[in-house]
């Protein structure tokens, strides 16, 4: 009987309470639900990436090449030379801990190795132990350690638990960016063929068919045709988008997630409606491309070189079609790549001479901020149209929406796109409430699935990582009745619906241009009975 009074004793045997050891002595334990499956060797091979092989993270033997340490060392040496960021970030961290509680994965999981500083120390300790004289002599005393296969597994496990959202780098007094370290770590792992399938296969697809999902040109066309059918049903107006049209003024590229997965599809319908409206009213000449049918770039999560290879298609296609500039859809890391990498990576090689500083042909606004890259974000484009009174918008069509805005990580911290979407929101939605400060704008929380981590198998990681964001949504939902979470990122639109369904089931997820598409009124269009989701519109008095 007395045993029954001691449930604690009963559970003591399964208590997860590790010994008080130094983190370097805590062996990595690869837990299901927190990692993504190993890459399919066919995808790795298709891309010609090194050491494609079949392996399983749960097995002891990862099928590493004999000289794997040498490969890693050479890789580190090369990168220290090529990237000042990497070299400086290896040297100057003082472990002040300002970043420690800033990572959404740490906040959600409590796993100490998810503190940004420690995630970086995983690599830094090897740098000190193998590359600095001081570290080689004093070893552990100098914070150094040797590269063993255990350490390598730890790298793999934790570098694929970072969504490269850069939130920690906002708070670091030296601007140390864990994303940068994760990128290097993943590049090194990639040298040994240790990629994850959720990244490698989309990259291979994108390389071949132009988009991550491997949608072939005819299917891509069919999908957009489907949306046009739906739009016709709802609005009575059938958009006639152009594809691969030579001589179009503007090439439009959006993440393929928008074409494929709900609720991104509604955003995609929003683009179609907007372009059709502008074509009919002002003769805007925009074309979609099936060859460059992916805005996102999972190559970024593989290596800088792979990013370059995928990104090159945008400029190549603009050249082939003779487009003056490129308009980009709503996407997160796509915009980090476009804003901070594209022009450097591919501008000199592939940007056609005929491309011009983007000018909005309708308003005459010159997008000077995109003078060199020649690519404009659709939120910038739409905000400019609204400012110049070029759109006839009826907010009442969104009257059933009480919106809050999730600043997607990469447009926020790798670009600074903060007020353009808010300006658009102000003109398409009546009820808008911000989440608490410290969870929005440059301090925004990741959705939990960035950087290629939105696979099905790591759902627990995503849910834990999504908690800080969901928690802030929950607050505005409970306090102000918010029922819709808007965002400008295709990964957000893939990850947040599940996260919301789990944490705050009453809140839905949408993109910016879904709201625009709902609000936009064509001259003489039929009375809409539903929104783009096919849900009944509230009465005009709302």
């Amino acid at each position, binding site marked *: 009987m007395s045993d029954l009074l001691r449930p604690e004793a009963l559970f003591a045997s399964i208590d997860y309470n590790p010994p008080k050891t130094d983190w370097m002595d805590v062996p990595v334990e690869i837990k299901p639900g927190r990692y993504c499956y190993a890459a399919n060797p066919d995808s790795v091979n298709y891309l010609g990436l090194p050491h494609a092989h079949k392996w399983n993270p749960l097995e002891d033997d990862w099928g590493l090449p004999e000289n794997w340490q040498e490969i890693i060392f050479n890789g580190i040496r090369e990168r220290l030379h090529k990237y000042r960021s990497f070299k*400086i970030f290896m040297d100057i961290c003082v472990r002040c801990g300002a970043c420690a509680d800033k990572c959404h994965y740490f906040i959600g999981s409590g796993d100490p190795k998810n503190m940004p500083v420690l995630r970086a120390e995983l690599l830094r300790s090897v740098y000190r132990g193998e590359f600095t004289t001081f570290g080689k002599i004093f070893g552990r005393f100098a914070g150094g350690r040797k590269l063993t296969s255990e350490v390598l597994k730890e790298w793999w496990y934790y570098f694929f638990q970072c969504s490269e959202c850069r939130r920690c780098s906002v708070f670091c007094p*030296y601007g140390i960016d864990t994303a940068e370290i994760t990128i290097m770590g993943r590049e090194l792992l990639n040298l040994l063929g240790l990629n994850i399938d959720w990244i490698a296969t989309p990259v291979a697809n994108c390389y071949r068919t*132009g988009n991550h999902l491997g949608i072939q040109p005819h299917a891509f066309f069919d999908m957009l045709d489907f949306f046009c059918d739906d739009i016709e049903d709802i609005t009575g107006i059938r958009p006639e988008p152009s594809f691969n049209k030579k001589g179009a003024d503007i090439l439009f590229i959006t993440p393929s997630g928008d074409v494929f997965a709900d609720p991104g599809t509604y955003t995609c319908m929003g683009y179609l409606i907007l372009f059709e409206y502008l074509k009919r009213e002002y003769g805007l000449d925009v074309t979609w491309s099936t060859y460059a049918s992916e805005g996102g770039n999972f190559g970024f999560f593989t290596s800088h070189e792979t990013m370059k290879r995928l990104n090159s298609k945008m400029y190549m296609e603009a050249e082939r079609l003779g487009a003056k500039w490129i308009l980009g859809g709503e996407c997160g890391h796509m915009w980090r790549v476009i804003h901070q990498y594209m*022009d450097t990576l591919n501008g000199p090689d592939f940007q056609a001479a005929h491309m011009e500083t983007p000018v909005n042909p309708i308003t005459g606004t010159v997008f000077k901020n995109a003078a060199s890259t020649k*690519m404009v974000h659709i939120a910038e484009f739409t905000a400019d149209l609204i400012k110049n009174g070029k759109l006839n918008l009826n907010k009442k069509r969104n009257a059933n929406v009480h919106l809050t805005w999730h600043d997607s990580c990469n447009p*926020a911290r790798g670009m*600074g796109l903060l007020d353009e979407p808010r300006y658009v929101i102000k003109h398409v939605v009546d009820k808008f409430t911000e989440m608490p400060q410290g969870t929005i704008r440059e301090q925004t929380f990741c959705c939990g699935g960035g950087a290629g981590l939105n696979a099905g198998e790591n759902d627990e990681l995503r849910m834990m990582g999504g908690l800080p964001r969901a928690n802030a949504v929950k607050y505005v939902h409970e306090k102000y009745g918010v029922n819709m979470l808007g965002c400008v990122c295709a990964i957000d639109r893939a990850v947040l619906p599940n996260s919301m369904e789990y944490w705050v089931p009453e809140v839905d997820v949408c993109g910016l241009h879904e709201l625009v598409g709902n609000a936009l009124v064509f001259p003489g269009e039929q009375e809409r009975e539903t929104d783009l989701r096919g849900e009944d519109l509230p009465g005009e008095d709302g």
Partner: protein
Amino acid sequence: MKALYSLFLVFALAAIALVGAGALGMEHVFGLYIPFLAVAVFVVGFCLKVVGWGRSAVPFCIPTTCGQQESLPWIKQNSIDNPSTTGGVVMRMILEVLLFRSLFRNTKVDLHKGTRVTYGSSKWLWLGALAFHYAFLVIVIRHMRFFAEPVPGLISGIETLDSILQIGAPTLYLTDLVFVAAVTYLFLRRVVVPQIRYISQVQDYFPLFLILGIAFTGIFMRYFVKSDIISVKELTMGLVTFSWVIPEGIGVLFYIHLFLVSVLLMYFPLSKLMHMGGVFLSPTRNMNCASRKFRHINPWKFENVQYHTYPEYEDEFREKMVETGLPVDKPLEEGAE
């Protein structure tokens, strides 16, 4: 444990100086050779490290943008946290280096009594770090009086300000108090906050103890075991004018102080203390954020990059494209062979 190691190490260093300069009478070694060597190691090491960083390329423009970008003219840009001009970048760096702006961001959002959202600050780290670095700076400047004759007005001015409270004789320097308090705070948070303790290494405790050791020996010399300032200045002036002398009557405490400073100088370029130089070179802070406006050039090239061109793509999918009515560059017959 790591803290104890470090403490022990600093005691050991002090003991070396105590025995060396005291019992063994090696004042020359501890008063002249080691300090001189230390300065040389510091200067050379610091420069090598910075040059080493400088020799690594900055291939991409990767600043962390912490505010609204420059876009449409009527959208208010945050020109400091997301600068698009050199002036903006300079301002950002000044705020970062002089005021530790990023640490200042460390706010905690909270609900006051479950109803009102409040933005309480967790600015202690910022305050502690700022106090520590500025007190250190003032102390270093004050010490310059040992290396200049006559003492420049600026230095004596700072000294006067620092002792403005006129407590005790010799008058108490405010920075001494602030400095010891700040170092103690920085040490305590490493021991008390569990996350910080977990990430702390010997390398984090050691410089703190070393600096604390330097502070204590200095304070003792000034306020308690008064050292012969005239002789000390004779020695330090000798060091900078290369007319090396060891005056009589300098207490052993001074040699301990000097030895610990020498160790700090030598340790500096090998350690995280190099953040002093690194903060200026950090690409996520010191670059112009308007990277779509100005092309950043990568100094190195990717070699043998494979691309998937449009003609290759069309060759693979031409039939399907034609069937769907998508335009193609080459007609079907020609490509289908």
